[in-house]
């Protein structure tokens, strides 16, 4: 039996390199050889034991690029050697939301590199063929690894009531905030305001097209909007962080009737001013992951150069240096210096 190396998270902050059999693709499944894998914020929570739903032992890694190695029975859309990436949700196809195409909300979902399916910190992985997407040859493995976070951004904007010419604020200029801002720019936002406490991140998104960047430590965004924007203030606010300070900022900045889209993952309970939500008819919408349409959009946007993901890939390691890669991902100084996505390559 052929074997492969996998890096399993066996306990909090503890990885172990293991020699295991290469998995066999079952019916409707694809075996993928991993080329590159990114470290997501949720991976860091899983690594440090702060993720509410991810528990070791599990092989992490869900933002990845790969090559089809083999296909299972009934798989006709893919063949060996094809470059691909995939969505992460493997779903029942039968529950209320699955039947309506919102399968990321499946009642019985499993999630690659998170829950129930080992992820891309291994030479090979197996995933449901329905979730696999072919990628064009002009995309590098690093760019393909950014399809997943970009799909999150597309989903958030598609889910909202954004219309061309609207004004929008994006809270947080990390990878998801940056990509959400870029998708809004691409979709024809009129005035795009991005806020973050890290100046280096603001400089990057300013270069990529934000009209205004604000650091809430120096400038109160709500006050800035009151003084500098017209009566529409902000039509939409995307919170790509999701803590008490950012939700407060969103609710305080909103005009009456503004829509707030929650993309960041908040701790379970956040004390915020719900009286404003009621009194001002604020619309608060949660946005979870993505569906196939978002992947299709993300792949096209990268391959046609409509979104800049290259500038976000700031730290690239060999997969063998996974310890250093995780240490870098968790390094606050690196972030202050403008560090964004950490990638590992095979």
């Amino acid at each position, binding site marked *: 039996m052929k074997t492969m190396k996998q890096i399993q998270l066996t306990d909090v902050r503890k990885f172990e390199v293991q020699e295991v059999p290469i998995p066999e693709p079952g019916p409707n499944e694809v075996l993928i050889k991993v080329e590159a894998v990114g470290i997501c914020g949720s991976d860091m929570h899983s690594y440090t034991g702060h993720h509410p739903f991810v528990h070791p032992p599990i092989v992490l890694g869900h933002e990845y690029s790969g090559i089809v190695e083999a296909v299972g029975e009934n798989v006709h859309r893919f063949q060996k050697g094809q470059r691909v990436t995939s969505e992460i949700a493997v779903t029942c196809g039968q529950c209320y939301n699955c*039947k309506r195409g919102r399968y990321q909300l499946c009642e019985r979902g499993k999630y690659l590199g998170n829950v129930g399916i080992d992820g891309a910190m291994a030479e090979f992985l197996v995933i449901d063929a329905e979730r696999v997407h072919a990628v064009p040859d002009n995309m590098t493995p690093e760019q393909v690894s950014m399809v997943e976070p970009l799909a999150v951004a597309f989903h958030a904007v598609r889910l909202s009531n954004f219309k061309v010419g609207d004004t929008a604020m994006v809270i947080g200029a990390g990878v998801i905030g940056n990509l959400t801002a870029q998708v809004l720019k691409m979709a024809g936002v009129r005035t795009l305001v991005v806020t973050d406490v890290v100046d280096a991140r603001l400089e990057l998104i300013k270069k990529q097209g934000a009209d205004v960047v604000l650091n809430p430590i120096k400038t109160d965004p709500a006050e800035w909007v009151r003084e500098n924007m017209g009566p529409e203030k902000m039509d939409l606010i995307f919170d790509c962080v999701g803590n008490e300070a950012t939700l407060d900022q969103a609710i305080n900045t909103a005009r009456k009737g503004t829509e707030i889209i929650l993309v960041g993952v908040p701790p379970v309970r956040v004390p915020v001013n719900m009286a404003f939500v009621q009194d001002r008819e604020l619309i608060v919408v949660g946005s979870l992951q993505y569906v196939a349409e978002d992947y299709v959009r993300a792949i096209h946007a990268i391959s046609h150069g409509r979104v800049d993901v290259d500038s976000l890939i700031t730290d690239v390691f060999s997969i063998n240096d996974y310890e250093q890669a995780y240490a870098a991902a968790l390094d606050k100084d690196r972030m202050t210096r403008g560090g964004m996505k950490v990638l590992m390559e095979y």
Partner: protein
Amino acid sequence: MVMRAFVFGGKHNCSLQSVPVPTINSDEVLIQVSHCGICGTDIHIDDGEFFCKENLILGHEFSGYVAEVGADVKHLKVGDRVVGDPMTPCFQCTYCQSGQMNYCVELPGIGVNLDGAFAEYIAVPASNVHVIGDNVSMEEAAMAEPLSCAIRGMDLLKCKSGESVVIIGDGTIGLMMVQLCKLAGLAPIVLVGAKPSVAPLATRLGADVFLDGRDENIVERVRAAVGFKQINNVIEAVGAKTTLELSLEVATFGSKILWFGVPSPETRISVVPNEVFTKELMIQGSLMNPHTMTRAVALLNEGRLDLESLITHTFTLEELPEAFECYRNNPERIKVMIKIMR
């Protein structure tokens, strides 16, 4: 085991035949058919206008009793009173994956390319089967499917309580639309029909005004009936050239027009595009019944609609040719129902 079934053998060549009772897969149930309604689609198929596999049993608006349950079926048991959703998508294509099953590339469907319910028994995937309340008669239950299609149309129209509506067509769908619009709080509800004898029924079901569509001043009469109000919604439930054109002629500024009636593929109509522009008209089509069967069954179980009154003629399976004839030529018919279980 054999059973009686009405088989489509090509254009104008349907016949009663003796065929084997279908066998079921582990995720299917066998239903003994009680009633099955005739739909305009069946007539279009018989006329050779719509695609249909040859040697297929027609009929897709049906009710019946569960006669046998596949090994993997958990939520149904023998004897359950049920209706079946004829839409059997592939669940694999891009459309199915995004929840738009009515666009499925396989164009699947009971009574179109899977054997239908003009037969004593039919095999149906368990996930397509809905149990009906004891208070719902089997003939009324057989109309859950057209009702679910009408609900799809209402969903797409996005009409709101307090808006006006003009419904063109006093057949089964037109009179279902009257009731759905009444439930949804639309006012006034103006029904334009071709059967003045239906007026008392239409009024009882919720129409505020019945107008004869053959009147040469019908557009003025509709406008007068709605009064000074904008006509927010127009529902065309016939599918003929004259009624489709009328749906555009009666429209006012900002009207939304639902084209629900199924036209023949050859139908061409005359449109004044400038009117669509100046009035910002919106024309909406509606296809089949994705995800609406649950609500159709719920409305029947709750007794919110009267569908029994729409059944004007009932025939047996042996009398299907006469039933088709009645559907085509009897100007007074509304729903023509086939009572299959003896």
